[in-house]
Each structure stands twice: as C-alpha cells, then as structure tokens.
C-alpha cells in the first residue's frame, strides 16, 4: 500500500501538467464553444517568443515572461477572435473543430517562418531556482520536486481557483457561457457578445501562453508536436471533466498522472501488457470515458435555440444547373480525366508521375472522408488508421497466404470496413466533437498498441508489398500502376456516387436534417451510420493497400501517421466534404501544392543569380524567399483553407463551381433571350428560371440543413 501511495505521489506533478492543459481546453470550450485542438500550437507560440527574447536576446526573466504570456498570449487570442472565431459563434461545433484543426496545421509553420526552423534546444525555465529539496524538503528526502514541477502545480491550482471564482461568482463568467450557448439571445439582453467573446479568447490564449512557457522546459527542444502530444494525452482529463467542469478536469488530470505512475511501477516493465497499455493509457482512458462516463455517454453539442433564424445554406451547385449544363459538366469531367490519363502516360516524367499517382491514391483515401463527413455528417479523425489497417492487411495476406496483390488490397479494404463497423457500434451514440475525440483516441490507441507489434507492422522493417501483375501487364512499371490507381479511384468515386444517390445516402441526408424525424419514418440511424462508417473505413483501407503497393511497403510512419489524418480532414472539408471531385483534388493537392510552391520560390533565387547588378535592397528582399519555405507555406495554405469552412461549409470547390455555374447560366440565358427561336438542347423551356433544379436525382435531394451541432451541409 505504501508503495502504491509513493507511486501515486510521483504521478501528481505529471498529472498537474495534464490538468493545466486540460483546464485550458475546457476553458476555451466553455467560453467559445471551440474544442481547440490548436491550444498546443498557441502554447508553442508563447514558448518560442519566450525562448527568443530570453535566450537569444538575453532579456531579464520578468519582461520576457510578461511579453510571452501577458502580451503575446492574449494578443493572439484577440487576433483569433477578431479574424476568425467571431464569425464562427453561431456555427456548429464541427465547423469550429475543423477551424481549430486548420490552426493546428498553420500556426507552427507560421512560427517557423517568423523565427526560423533551427532547433531550439533547452528551453529556458520560468523560474530561477533549480531544485527544491534544499528548501522545501530536507536534503536527501525520498521525494524531490524540481522548481518547474512546483511552479506547474502552483500555477495549476491558481488557475483552477481563479477560473472557479470567475465562473461561479462573476457576471463576466456567466456572460461568457451565455455567449457560447446563444449569442443572439445574449445580445437581446443588451450584452455586447462580441466583447465578451473577445475577452474569452484573450483569457484562454493567456492560459495557453502560460502553459507553453511553463511546460517548455519539459522538452529537450521546442517542437509544436511535443505540445500537441501532451495535449492529446490530456484529452482524457477534459473528458473526465465532461468538457465543462474545471475542478473535475483538474481531478481528471491528476488521476491520469497517478494512474500512469502506478502502472509504470507495478506492471512488469518489459511485459507485453506494459508495452501496449502504458503508452496507450491516456487514449484508452479517453475512449472509455467517452463511451461510459455519465454525462458523456449521450452528450450532444449545445445548439443555439435561435439558430433557426439563420438563412438556409445555398443550394448545391448540382441542384441549380440545367440538364444541358449537367451533361456538359460531366463531359468536361470525363475530358479532364482523359487528359490527365494521357498526360500521365505520355508526358509526365517519373518524378511528377510518382507525385500524381500518390495524389490519385490519396484521393481514394480522401473519398472515405467524403462518405463519413460529407454524407454522414460525422467527423472522423482516424481515417489514416483505417488506411493503415488496409495496408497492413494487404501486406500480411500477400506474405502469409501468397494471395494475389490485387485481391489482397480488396481483402484489406474488407478488414478495414469490418473494423470501421465494429468501431461504429459503440461510438455512434456520440456526435460532433465527442465523436471526433473518440475516433482520435482510436487512432492513437492503434498507433501506441498495434503499430509496434511485429505481426502487425513488421517491426523494424516495414512489411513489403509487391506490385501486382495482371495478365500480361506488369504493374511494376509506374505508368501502368498509375492507370490502375486511376481506375480504382474511378471505382471508389463511382461507389461513393452510387451510395450518395441511393437509399443509404438519402437516409443519411434525412438523418443529418433531423434524427428524430428520420426515425419517425422508420429510418434506422444506427444502421445507416454503421454502413457509412464501414464504407468509409473500407474505402480508406482500399486506398491504404494501394498506397502500400505503390510504395512497395506498408510503412506507418511514411504514410499513415495519425497527424496526416488530421491534415487530410482539413483538406477535404476545405475543398468540399460532399464532393467527389473535391476529394480527388485534395489528394492531388496534398502532394502537388508543395512542389508547385517550391518551383515558385526558386524563381527569385534564380533571378538574383542571373542579375548580379540588382540593387542590394531588391536582392536582399528576393533572397528572403527560399524554396525550403514551400512545405511550410503549403501547410499554412491548407490550414487557412480550413478557416474558410465557417463561411463556406460546403467547401471552396463547391462555392467556385456554383459561382461559375451561375455565370455560365446567366450568359446562356442572355444568349437564349437574344435568339429569335428557343432552339436549345435543354429540356426546359428557355424562359424557365435557370436556377430551377434539373430533374436530375441530385436536385431532388433536400437542400442541406443546418443541424445545430453537426454544421455539415
């Protein structure tokens, strides 16, 4: 018992680290309605600023801390509120989550551009004294805390107490929560919701800054991913606090730290159980809490009672075009695809062909997001995991059973679909943020428990996946493989299209509108959603198997790291979650945009080299543009793209398509009116409203409905 107690005490400092981050997340959620996965990225900003001024410019501790925490932190919050979240207040929680994912991707790259990408080793502490055993405990005592731990514990307690007072005893605290629930209603009462929201963001961002500076010395060098890793580990504490209770969140964080320490002390250190359970503990706890914790089991995102005053979203592009344009659009799509195939076969060199093939295969995986998010209205953050399951299964089936690779890829898809279906059963009662967190927990559990296993991933050497031979065609040749990838993309796209137009698609449409109304007409939400989850996982698995086959190995770190899954969601949702072509374009964009940017950024350097007589100032400016910025800028673009989601939840491509269609239809209409006779291929009379739906099935589908929580069109 004494031993357990000792271990428990050792877990408290780490528990407070979890608690501090989790309290920050809960504060943001309570006061803005945003489950801010970019909280760690905000913390990273203040940590870097503190590092720069304290270490590089040797500022004294106090001004450095004030700048990083009290100035930069709130300023960042102010900026985020003004530019972004102010416009998201009435959006659903999924829109907010996607926006925070965009920030998660973009902020670290902005920081790298601003402060350089050099390793920032040994972040400076926020305290002077190094050890406490001389002044807090007698020298040589059994438990020793360093000053960082003491500061973290104290800061956590002060923050929790302060927030408790704020929310329980002040009008501001009440208003903050009210603004999240219904800004319109608050404004009807004469409260300036914008100002309250601004204060909320400044406060939560201050807390992010404090966490960043305080926790940075835990790391050997500053990296945004270390903060994010800590943050996802702390998610279990936020779930324990039901995303609302600050004291419970504190308790949850401490319990998590304590549990970790006890497991570290009591489980045999080299046992299979320890290898799997210990690293995965925060994610297992998160998953279990989301499923079983009272208050979360059937949690629903808060819905604004006045949300009904919002105008309905604009109709889908497909629903406004005439039959003539529908045929024309499809002919255009076929032509573009054919040109793409011809380019791939005859023109592209092996480099560009490799990138395009990777993009085409990623397009298959992106289609899985179209199904789950676009059709199902659910956010899944584990699509990369399903792709990995497909890839590993493909490799194992080929290796162990000697099965044909093509067949194995489909077996991988089936296994991924089965896993998706199984996962769907327990998590489908969740929605919005809660569902997203459950899928994230699943992805992290898979990474921590399954990936290290030799029989799953091959251990140190990634599992080999050979290229298939189909009849006389050897797909070891990259051009032939490109055609195979394009064919499978077309197959997956057609499948998605058919399902979207079929019974399941219509059921999902109805469910997104109103689950209760759908149930009243006999639609089974569980059945439809399980099918959507399985189909989505199966398509991701298909893409994963294909990607492994293209690369020659099922390599988790190369292709399926869960972080990639987050970036993919951002890309697809930005481009258009309901659109097949948006998924394809997202897949291609992930690989091609950084390369295009690199080519672009090489131009100034070449220009300088070719023009030695340039004025020094011009040369200096041009030299600041470097090709190595290309990936960072691409990620910034991806991230900022997601920020448009609030304004255009239907996606950029859908918006552009609709705008283009309106222009074309307007021009056609003017042409038709100027004609003496109404000769047209269109089935409709020329004087009919061009915006009227075509008789196409797409047009008969109900217009997207705002769902309070889901926010997906």
């Amino acid at each position: 018992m004494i031993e357990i107690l000792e271990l428990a005490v050792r877990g408290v400092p780490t528990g407070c680290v979890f608690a501090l981050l989790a309290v920050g997340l809960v504060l943001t959620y309570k006061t803005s309605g945003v489950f801010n996965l970019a909280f760690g990225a905000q913390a990273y900003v203040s940590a870097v600023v503190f590092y720069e001024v304290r270490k590089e410019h040797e500022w004294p501790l106090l001004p450095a801390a004030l700048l990083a925490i009290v100035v930069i932190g709130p300023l960042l919050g102010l900026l985020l509120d003004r530019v972004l979240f102010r416009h998201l207040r009435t959006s659903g929680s999924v829109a907010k989550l996607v926006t925070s994912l965009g920030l998660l991707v973009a902020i670290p790259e902005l920081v790298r551009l601003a402060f350089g990408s050099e390793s920032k080793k040994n972040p400076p502490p926020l305290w002077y004294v190094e050890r406490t055993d001389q002044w807090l405990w007698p020298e040589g005592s059994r438990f020793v805390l360093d000053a960082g731990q003491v500061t973290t514990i104290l800061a956590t307690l002060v923050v929790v107490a302060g927030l408790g007072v704020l929310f329980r005893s002040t009008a501001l605290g009440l208003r903050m929560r009210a603004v999240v629930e219904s800004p319109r209603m608050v404004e009807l009462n004469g409260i300036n919701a914008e100002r309250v929201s601004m204060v909320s963001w400044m406060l939560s961002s201050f807390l992010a800054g404090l966490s960043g500076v305080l926790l940075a010395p835990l790391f050997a060098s500053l990296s945004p991913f270390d903060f994010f890793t800590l943050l996802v580990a702390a998610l279990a504490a936020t779930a324990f606090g039901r995303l609302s209770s600050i004291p419970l969140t504190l308790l949850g964080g401490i319990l998590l730290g304590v549990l970790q320490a006890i497991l570290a002390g009591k489980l045999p250190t080299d046992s299979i159980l320890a290898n799997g359970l210990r690293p995965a503990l925060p994610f297992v706890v998160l998953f279990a809490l989301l499923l079983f914790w009272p208050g979360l089991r059937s949690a629903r995102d808060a819905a604004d009672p006045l949300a009904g005053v919002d105008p309905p979203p604009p109709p889908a592009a497909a629903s406004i075009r005439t039959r003539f344009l529908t045929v024309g659009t499809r002919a255009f799509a076929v032509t573009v695809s054919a040109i793409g195939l011809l380019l791939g076969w005859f023109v592209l060199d092996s480099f560009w062909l490799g990138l395009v093939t990777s993009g085409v295969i990623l397009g298959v995986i992106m289609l899985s997001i179209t199904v789950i998010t676009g059709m199902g209205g659910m956010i899944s953050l584990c699509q990369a995991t399903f792709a990995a399951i497909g890839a590993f299964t493909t490799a194992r089936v080929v290796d162990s059973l000697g099965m044909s690779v093509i067949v194995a890829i489909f077996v991988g898809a089936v296994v991924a679909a089965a896993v998706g279906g199984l996962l769907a059963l327990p998590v489908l009662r969740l929605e919005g943020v809660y569902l997203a967190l459950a899928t994230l927990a699943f992805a992290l559990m898979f990474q921590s428990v399954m990936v290290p296993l030799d029989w799953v991933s091959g251990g140190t050497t990634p599992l080999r996946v050979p290229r298939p031979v189909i009849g006389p065609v050897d797909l070891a040749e990259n051009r032939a493989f490109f055609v195979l990838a394009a064919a499978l993309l077309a197959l997956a796209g057609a499948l998605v299209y058919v399902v979207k137009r079929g019974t399941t698609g219509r059921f999902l449409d109805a469910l997104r509108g109103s689950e209760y109304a759908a149930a009243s007409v006999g639609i089974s939400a569980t059945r439809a959603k399980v099918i959507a989850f399985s189909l989505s996982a199966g398509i991701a698995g298909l893409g994963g198997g294909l990607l492994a086959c293209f690369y020659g190995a099922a390599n988790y770190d190369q292709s399926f790291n869960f972080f990639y899954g987050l970036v993919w969601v951002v890309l697809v949702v930005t481009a258009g979650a309901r659109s097949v072509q948006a998924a394809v374009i997202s897949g291609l964009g992930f690989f091609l945009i950084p390369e295009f940017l690199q080519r672009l950024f090489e131009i100034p350097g070449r220009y300088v080299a070719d023009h030695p007589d340039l004025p020094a100032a011009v040369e200096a400016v041009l030299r600041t543009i470097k090709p190595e910025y290309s990936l960072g800028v691409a990620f910034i673009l991806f991230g900022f793209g997601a920020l448009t989601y609030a304004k255009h939840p239907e996606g950029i491509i859908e918006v552009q398509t609709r705008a283009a269609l309106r222009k074309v239809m307007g021009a056609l209409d003017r042409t038709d009116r100027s004609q003496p006779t109404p000769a047209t291929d269109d089935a409709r009379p020329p004087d009919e409203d061009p915006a009227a739906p075509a008789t196409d099935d797409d047009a008969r589908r109900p217009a997207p409905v705002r769902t309070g929580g889901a926010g997906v069109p």
Partner: protein
Amino acid sequence: MRLRVPACAAVLLLLMVACSNSESAPRTAARGEDEEKVAVDAPGVTDSEIRVGGVASITNPLGGEYADMFRGVEAYFQMVNEDGGIHGRELTLVAERDDKVASNNAQVQALLAQDDVFAVLPVATLLFTGADTLVERNVPTFGWTINPEWQGTEEEPKENLFGQAGSYLCFDCEAPIWPWLAQEAGASKVGVIAYNVAQSSECAEGIRKSIERWGPEAGVEVGFIDTSLSFGTTDLSVQVSQMKEAGVDFITSCVDLQGVVTLAKEVKKQNLDATQFIPNGYDQSVVDEFGDLFEDSYVLTFFAPFETEEKPEGLQTYLEWMERTGTTKSENSLNGWLNAALFVQGLRDAGPDFNRQKVIDAINKMTNWDANGLLCGVDWTSAHDQPSENVCSAISKVTDGAFEPVFAEPGKPFLLWERDAPLKDPEVVAGVD
C-alpha cells in the same frame, strides 16, 4: 510525434561497423590533372562534370534537420575539385532535395529523371522509401544508414547502397561494449530504457542479451529494463526511483535526445549515483546547452572523435575543410563527408572509363575502407548484408563540458573487440590492419 526511426541510430551504427583483417584501400588518391580523361557514356557525366544529387529531411514537420549532410559533401567536392577534380572532371552537387512529407520516393525519382545525376548522395532521411527505386536502377547511393532499407539480404544484397560506415543494420545484435564499459565504470547493475517502438525496444533487447552473455564475466547484470516508454516521454521519475531501488549504477538507453535529457534530469534530481552511457550523445551543441547534465557521461562514435590526440590524416583533413568552408563540424557534416569520400574513392578505383556498375564494383571490392583513419575500417565485401566479425568504436567522456576520448591512445582512437570471443579488454587501434 516526431518520427521515431532515428531514436537509436548511433547504437546501431556501433553494431554495424564492419571490420576485417584484409588489405587496405589506397590511402592517397591521384591528382585529377594526372589522370587520363576518356569519353564516358553514363548518366550525369559530361566532359566537364560528374553530377550528383542528394535528398535529406530538412523541413519535414515531423522532424529531421539533416541539411548539414549536404555541406559535408560540398566541402569534400570542393577539396577534390581544387585538386583538379577526378578523371578530368569536376564533381558537382547539382541537387539538394528536401523530401518534405511522404515524398522520399518521388524526390529520388526527381534526382534521376530531372537532375540527371550519376550518383545519389547524400541520403539522410527519416524514411527511405526511394531505396527500391535506387536498387532497381542500380544507382550508386551513399547516405546515413538510419533506415532499415539500407540493409541487404542474401536474396537482395542491395550492393549499390552504401552507408557511411557499412549498410548492415542489426537492431538487436549483441556487442561486448556494454558489459565491458559497465565493468570499467566500476558498475555491477545496468539500467536500460527504451521506447515501445520497434527499433528502440529491439536495441534494448540487444543490450540485454549482451549483458546476459558477457555480464557474468564482467560481474555485471541487468538491474532494470523498461522498453515500454511512450515516445517523447517527459516523466521518468518512477523508472529512476526503481533503478535506485534496484541498485542500478550504470544506465544506458535507446532513446532520442528528449528521452536522454529527461532521464539525465531525473537521475540528477533523485541523486542516483550512476554512470550514464549515452550512445548517441556525441553532439557538442547538446553538451553546451545542457551544462553539467551530462558531465562524466560516456558517448560512442563510429568515427575518430574530433578531439582525438594525434589525429589521423582523414580527421585532420575533415577538420581543416570544415574550417575553410565555414561548415559546422558535426556528425551530420561528417557523414556527408564520408559519403563523398567513399564515392570519390570508388570513382578513382573504377578508372577513367568509369560507369555506375564499375564504381559499385570497385567499392564492393574494398576490404578495409577507413577514410584515411576516420573510420575503423569497413569491409565492403560483406558490409551490406552481414554483421561484422568485430565491434570497433571510439568512446568519449564528457569532461568539463567537452568530449574527451577515453581508453584510447594518441593516434589510436578505436577500441576493437571480437564479437564472438569471451569478454576481454579491447585492442586499442588506429584501425583494422
């Protein structure tokens, strides 16, 4: 969330250095202008230049900052070119590709399709998915062997892939260095920590097996082992307290800088009196940053440490050219330098009518490649797919914030053990004769 592959790279490098007792490769190359220039019909070779290009992880958001490898290659090429080039041609590093995210294979394709290179060097990437392409195309390739793709097998020898000191990677091979060093440090119980990722935990398994095999002779045993740490852990208080209870007095690890620093801080905090062996800790910038955290710790290098007394010719030349080109002396730049040195030696040995295959064959005939004393010696007839018969490395100790080679003698920086012999003191050597 940094990628986890390089976590125990240096430990593996120790294990793969292949040594032999055969003849040495020629130490001094002929000057370029003395050489005959003949027409060569090979990709990337013109009348005036031999084009090479490399790929490194530079801006990958998941980690990797290996751009210094290019600087090492560039410095070596500059030295050769100032000396008249080779076979009447200058060596040109025409492409420094960044493999960004998940695009290693594509960048390798670009080197071949767009940059028209004769050879690929350096390769220093978190993931090396372009290896198959390079093997299929039989392109001489040189790089930093932290990825399993470098290693050949009997069925697939990958004889065109050359690591800086061999290509064979053995994650769980036994080596006598751990029990021997623990014994030298006066220790009897060894603590080992590793992450629960395959490379790291297998490395720990190798240490455990080594101590079980030679430990009884050295009076050393495993007192504590934990192979289930989360990658990037920030808390090792329980592990260190358990080591303390188990009487551990020698600690080694298969973790990255984050793990090493967290461990060292906790050891210091809990006043655990144990010698630390940080195999991949040879980085002056780390020692500079973390002050006395690593004082008295041992580190391992597969090359002659920069601080070696009576430096071998290869080390002197490297240090001189790092200074001349303003390049940081570091393991990264050294790896690039070694890659370039091996390539150039292969070109010389291939003769004036060289081509890719001749260069590959020439290198694979070398039985003792030592880069003029920078390395202990690599037997390229077996270094692709077999562990070496010997283990040969240099050990340094952190003393007053600087690395001090230990157990070495002036001009003899390396310690040589027979892998399959009973434990005994290593032979102190300048290299394998």
